[in-house]
């Protein structure tokens, strides 16, 4: 059990330090890499408490997909320079009040949630589902999500779908003059469409690209 505790503290230390480094490091790309480290150590913590399905999904979704897109944006746009300007500018930033407000709200929410656990333990018991140790993690998750919480699950799927369509609608633009390849057109092209025999009169020439 001591080894278990040591490993737990190592992972939590990495998680906390890298979470701090995300906000502190000046290079934006380094921030994203620290965020990835944070995700990985948190998924390790998930695996340690026996939630291996959640841990793996965390790795696949957050590290394998979301963080890649973060990196994309950060590398393509020159966010690094902007961030440096924020760091170096001595004047007050207009973002500070909003950021402060959001973080205060989150802080109080955390206090309410954790306080609820501490002072009313029965709150947790009423919603907790009995853990069946015979079943694997994935099976027990599936048997809860697809029966008791099917409505919430489907609704969250719909929310994601709407978000996806919204993102596509926001970024979609129709450009003119773009040449697209159509396999169907290419394959169904025949000799008589492509070749035309013309009798050219002397000193007249032919008009191509009609």
């Amino acid at each position, binding site marked *: 059990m001591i*080894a278990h505790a040591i490993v737990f503290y190592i992972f939590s230390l990495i998680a906390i330090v890298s979470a701090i480094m995300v906000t502190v490091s000046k*290079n934006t*790309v380094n921030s994203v*890499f620290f965020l*990835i480290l944070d995700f990985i150590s948190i998924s390790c913590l998930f695996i340690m408490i026996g939630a*291996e*399905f959640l841990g*793996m*999904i965390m*790795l*696949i979704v957050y*590290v*394998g*997909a979301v963080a*890649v*897109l973060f*990196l*994309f944006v950060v*590398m*393509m746009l020159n966010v690094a320079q902007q961030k440096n300007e924020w760091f170096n500018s001595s004047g007050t930033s207009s973002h500070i009040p909003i950021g402060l407000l959001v973080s205060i709200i989150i802080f109080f929410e955390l206090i309410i949630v954790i306080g609820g656990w501490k002072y009313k333990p029965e709150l947790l018991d009423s919603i907790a589902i009995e853990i069946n140790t015979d*079943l*694997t*993690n*994935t*099976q027990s998750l599936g048997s809860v999500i697809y029966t008791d919480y099917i409505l919430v699950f489907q609704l969250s799927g719909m929310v994601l779908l709407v978000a996806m369509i919204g993102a596509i609608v926001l970024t979609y633009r129709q450009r003119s003059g773009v040449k697209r*390849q159509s396999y169907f057109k290419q394959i169904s092209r025949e000799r008589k469409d492509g070749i035309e025999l013309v009798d050219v009169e002397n000193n007249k020439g032919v008009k191509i690209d009609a």
Partner: protein
Amino acid sequence: MTELFIFFEQIYRILFLLVPVLVSVAMIVWLDRRVWAFVQKRRGPNVVGPFGLFQTLADALKYIFKEIIIPASSNKVIFILAPIVTMTLALIAWAVIPFSETFVLADINVGILYLFAVSSLGVYGIIMGGWASNSKYPFLGAIRSAAQMVSYEVSIGVIIINVLLCVGSLNLSDIVLAQKDLWFVIPLFPMFIIFFISALAETNRPPFDLPEAEAELVAGYQTEYSGMMYAMFWLGEYANILLMCAIGSILFLGGWLSPIDLFPFNAIPAPIWLILKILFLFILFALIKAIVPRYRYDQLMKLGWKIFLPFSLIYVVLTASFLMYFDLLPGN
């Protein structure tokens, strides 16, 4: 004392797995070049050792003694980290590959998810290398590669769902044992083809080797790398290819199971069958490299998103309805 014993036993087991994997990666590079050469009516590497078997070792020796050049304007930490990440991720995935019913390093419940997660992390080695080089060609190569790998992972994920519907478990040994009567390559043949092509794209093999397309991008993300660091990228890439072949043979070709459960076949040890299946898939990989021209980038994306993804999604629905209708769903 017993803890220490267990610790060393684990280390021996890991070494017993990783050393053969590394040696076979070296051999597989030789095999790749040999097959490629035979298709083109050349001889290929045949000088160093019998049949040129030690060519890769000679190459590795050459790389080790070359100078490692780190570009002055690169981000040095990430630049050095990139090949290490590639190599490590290519090797840790082997922990869950079952070579027989008992011969597996970690028989975890979510084995296939672990493999999927590790292969989706593989993109970081490439992005880090491309970005840290601080140069145009590597960066373009890295961006291309990231987009390509993320796109094809989606279709691989859906294909894995197809297989899991027939198995009812995420454990790799269970997936193999579920194919005792019928290999999944027969009922899910279209999925096998799509998996194979997606695996080509996922490992940046020709005809999808756009991240390192030498005609456009010099050598893609590897442009600035030299010596041992280049060799690590190279070995990691081949270890990944071998891993994809292993996943393919576990998901579709029945893993360690023998094709016919009769005497002369089932007397052959189980790991040999898995190795033979991996080799079969790898030779297909090598042949494809030799006979197919490189795709254009927009064609690659179109194939991934507009053809493979909808097709495999429809196949999920078909498989699920088929299993439901004939009451073949794996129950618990």
